[in-house]
């Protein structure tokens, strides 16, 4: 926990405003409003089916919310435009890892550079000097990121052949390649053992240390409470509480939500 930083003084990075989403009869999100401040590690928890992933999907433009919306760095996010969300600086990982299986680990991260680079087909066909320079820079940056998440030795292996933990790291590297202001991780510790979780924790703290805000969905309550500056709890699509871990942990409604699930 970082009691020494008082997050309320930091500017708001992302504000969700009354976000609603339903699937047929299922109300996956009910007017959820919350704010994430710059430099935070912000935890989003809740029982299975509470709507956490749906929140991510709405924020990153994969789903169109049925109501409400998001402000990012003070301006609204366009709904239904995942590429714009990424360009604005929101990157994510997926709960059920989604890598480009038949591409190498390095190529996966290089794809992450897409949104920050420019080369087009004409340049590629003529192999122009500018294209070559950009290509070299992409490769170098991608390699550096593989080193950063500690899987550089797997650079040339196909993503689908990496181990589970390596795949999780690769997904984070790919997300980081887009130079996000906000990195959203959907259950990154799922299926990891204690050592791996420990390493992941260091990685996340390192990322925050580099100035990136982190939004973390996680079922591992110990990890969340230990790592996050603030935590929001969703239950049946509704926000139960948004506060520092110490308060959240002892909130009666939160305990009920978890016991009731």
């Amino acid at each position, binding site marked *: 926990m970082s009691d020494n930083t008082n997050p309320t003084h930091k500017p708001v990075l992302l504000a969700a405003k009354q976000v609603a989403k339903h699937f047929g009869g299922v109300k996956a999100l009910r007017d959820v409003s919350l704010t994430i401040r710059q430099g935070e590690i912000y935890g989003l928890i809740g029982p299975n089916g509470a709507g956490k992933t749906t929140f991510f*999907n709405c924020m990153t433009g*994969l*789903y169109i919310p049925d109501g409400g919306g998001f402000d990012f760095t003070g301006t609204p996010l366009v709904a239904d435009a995942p590429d714009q969300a990424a360009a604005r600086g929101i990157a994510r990982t997926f709960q059920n890892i989604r890598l480009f299986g038949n591409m190498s680990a390095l190529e996966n991260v290089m794809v992450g550079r897409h949104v920050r680079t420019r080369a087009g087909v004409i340049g590629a066909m003529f192999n122009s000097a500018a294209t070559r320079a950009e290509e070299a820079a992409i490769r170098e940056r991608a390699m550096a990121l593989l080193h950063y998440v500690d899987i550089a030795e797997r650079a040339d292996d196909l993503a689908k052949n990496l181990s589970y933990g390596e795949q999780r790291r690769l997904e984070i590297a790919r997300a980081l390649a887009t130079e996000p202001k906000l990195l959203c991780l959907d259950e990154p510790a799922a299926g990891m053992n204690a050592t791996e979780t420990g390493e992941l924790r260091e990685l996340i703290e390192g990322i925050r240390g580099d100035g990136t805000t982190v939004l973390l969905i996680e079922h591992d309550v110990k990890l969340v409470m230990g790592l996050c500056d603030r935590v929001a709890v969703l239950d049946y699509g509704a926000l139960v509480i948004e506060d520092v871990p110490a308060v959240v942990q002892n909130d009666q409604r939160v305990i009920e939500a978890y016991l009731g699930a």
Partner: protein
Amino acid sequence: MDIFLQQIVNGLVQGSIYALVALGYTMVYGIMGLINFAHGEVVMIGTLTAITVAGSLLAAGMPPALAGLAALIVATLLCMALGWGLERIAYRPLRNAPRLTPLITAIGMSIILQNLAMILWGRNYQTFPPLFPKVNFELAGVHFTAVQVIIVLLSAATMLSLTLLVYRTKLGMAMRATAQNPAVAGLMGVNSNRVISAAFVIGSALAALAGIMVGAYYEIAHYQMGFMLGLKAFTAAVLGGIGNLLGAMAGGILLGLIEALGAGYIGDLTGGFLGSHYQDIFAFMVLIVVLMFRPSGLFGEKTGDRA
């Protein structure tokens, strides 16, 4: 006005046939997410089989009604077996393959069936034997034949029975459950292999029926006839909302009407620039427009990819 009513009647007849074929596409797609490209070929095999059976029985002196019944039974059984075999041999081994794989297999099966038919029946057009009385009716200035009446009534009856089957029987319930969520249906004890086979078999029976209708209506058949028919029927299924039975029926009829009216008026609409031989483009125009503005079809629910 006469042209208008006449084209409505023609469209209704053609549309009933589309609807029967579209049901086959929609059932298979709804349950396993596959466009069964070879379905149009099943229709073609149905027509050609019926021609051969009815033709030879008639030649042997059997009365038309009996010959027709025998042709219907043989063609239907053969097509059902074909549909079942198609799924077993070609598609089932690919259940977990990437999406494009079964699609390409389906194209391959369609080519195989077409060329088998060509080897068996030859390149030439086959004439449909005179099974139905050549009676013409006239009502309010609109002409129609006995065959047209039979087609509309028979397909209406068939669609009604199918609806009852799907909404009133255990098999139908299993089919709907599998279409909703194969994994959950499996957990609840539904044998998904059986359900999928059933969809293919029922779809193929409808295809055989439709095939005989097309043959009787146009009095002519050909080994390549299944392709365009299948494509249009698929369009009808998409128009109605793929995976939705009622949608397929409505889509089929609607497409038949659009085509008939389009063909009747295209000359006027384009100032004589395009003639009725452009009839075939309507289906694709409809397809593209529907997919652009309402990809889930007229009756389909909106679905998104799960992320």
